[in-house]
């Protein structure tokens, strides 16, 4: 079914003709291969900068929230209320010495951070942040969103292996074992949404929710599974045993320093952002909402989910490794199989 939105809400962001710039023939981008390449490059730069800036914001928010929870003040010295603290930190990280252990494997040591950060940012291509607005609406967008970040598992293992350090090695094995374990229930929970949508395109996802209702109401169990497993995928507390500082120093990135270390950090936050944004698209109707423009709704909903993750980090203890794996395989996987069955019934009931 077609969704009827006011024109000013539903314009196609990729079509720059709404700018009415007299000197640019905007269809040019779509007609030539180098135009598309440039367009992709442009969006890549934009998304990357945006994610980088957002990460700086998160770090600040996270410090302030943790301070509030623990009865401290948090950063206060640099700038008003310590607002400039993360900026200063970024500069510090960028000009810090880049130490690579002599025994490390040079190729894998350099490749691993890129394998963590690039897929996380690339996943953003298919996130529908407006009502029909997607950076690029692939035919198989939802699968793309799950497939591309799955490369991160390789990056985690490579980082641990390349460092030639016992802590890193263990941390890398644990991190990727956890990553792959939680990937299955997470993917299965998305399958239920695809069943209701009837398409793998992420723009159709929003239209389907406009036709019926937010999928969180139809598939509450899928939503719970998705959120918990996503927290595990991005190594957030209570699932951060790979980086348990009390036993493994810093896990797989123990040997990394300076900017390369911050790439891991960036990758973690970038995947938190994309996963939360996609959770909103999957279960909360993306930018659907009254009065305000869709983009605003979308950002608000995403911010709520991310804030939830931040608060969770400072309120829950950490799982043990064996509990973590048992949780994935003995609880979440059977639960998500049952959920498939439930979703089939819901689907038959609704349509």
């Amino acid at each position, binding site marked *: 079914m077609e969704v009827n939105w006011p024109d000013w809400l539903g314009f196609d962001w990729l079509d720059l003709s709404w700018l009415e710039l007299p000197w640019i023939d905007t269809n040019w981008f779509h007609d030539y291969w180098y135009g598309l390449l440039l367009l992709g490059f442009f969006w*890549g730069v934009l998304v990357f900068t945006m994610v980088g800036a957002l990460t700086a914001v998160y770090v600040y928010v996270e410090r302030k929230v943790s301070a509030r929870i623990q009865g401290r003040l948090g950063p206060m010295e640099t700038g008003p209320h310590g607002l400039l603290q993360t900026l200063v930190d970024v500069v510090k990280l960028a000009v810090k010495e*880049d130490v690579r252990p002599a025994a490390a494997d040079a190729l894998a040591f350099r490749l691993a951070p890129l394998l963590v950060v690039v897929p996380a940012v690339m996943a953003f291509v298919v996130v529908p942040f407006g009502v029909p607005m997607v950076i690029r609406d692939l035919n198989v967008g939802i699968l793309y969103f799950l497939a591309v970040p799955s490369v991160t598992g390789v990056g985690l293992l490579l980082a641990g292996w390349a460092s030639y350090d016992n802590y890193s090695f263990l941390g890398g094995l644990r991190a990727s074992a956890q990553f792959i374990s939680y990937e*299955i229930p997470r993917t299965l929970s998305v*399958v239920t949404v695809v069943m209701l*949508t*009837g*398409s793998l395109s992420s723009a159709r996802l929003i239209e389907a929710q406009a036709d019926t209702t937010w999928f969180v109401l139809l598939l509450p169990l899928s939503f719970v599974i998705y959120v918990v497993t996503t927290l595990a995928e991005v190594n957030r507390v209570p699932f951060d045993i790979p980086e348990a500082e009390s036993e493994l120093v810093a896990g797989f990135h123990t040997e990394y320093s300076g900017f390369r270390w911050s790439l891991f950090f960036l990758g973690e936050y970038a995947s938190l952002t994309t996963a939360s944004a996609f959770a909103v698209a999957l279960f909360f109707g993306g930018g659907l909402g009254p009065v305000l423009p869709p983009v605003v709704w979308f950002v608000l909903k995403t911010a709520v989910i991310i804030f939830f993750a931040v608060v969770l980090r400072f309120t829950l203890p950490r799982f043990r490794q064996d509990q973590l*794996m048992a949780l994935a395989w003995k609880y979440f996987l059977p639960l998500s199989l049952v959920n498939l069955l439930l979703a*089939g019934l819901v689907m038959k009931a609704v349509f």
Partner: protein
Amino acid sequence: MSEELLADVFFLLGFGVAGLLLPMLPLLLFRYIRPQHPSAVKMEPYESGVVQTTAPRRPFHMAYYNFALVFIVFEVETVLLFAVSPVLRDASWMDLLKAGIFIVLVADGLFYAWRKGALVWK
């Protein structure tokens, strides 16, 4: 149709190039600003300041591999469900049953692994 896919590939290539270049840019830019004084001690593995006594790359226990094994099988299953699930909405009960048989077949593997204790972290 296939023109649209071609456009997708070019777009994603451009996006990927941007994604690869941007993280590497600061590394190259600050190369000559940041201090670079490697020393033998600094380049040792960290290990909480203790001298490394065992080589980290040694055969490791099998529990990890059991999980990886069950993982790959279930990954293939979910992926095939992705192929089938978009058409299920307008499908008959018979089609649902066909998909159900497939799920039950693979779920047996999980049941087997569970019963054999392969899912226990040792």
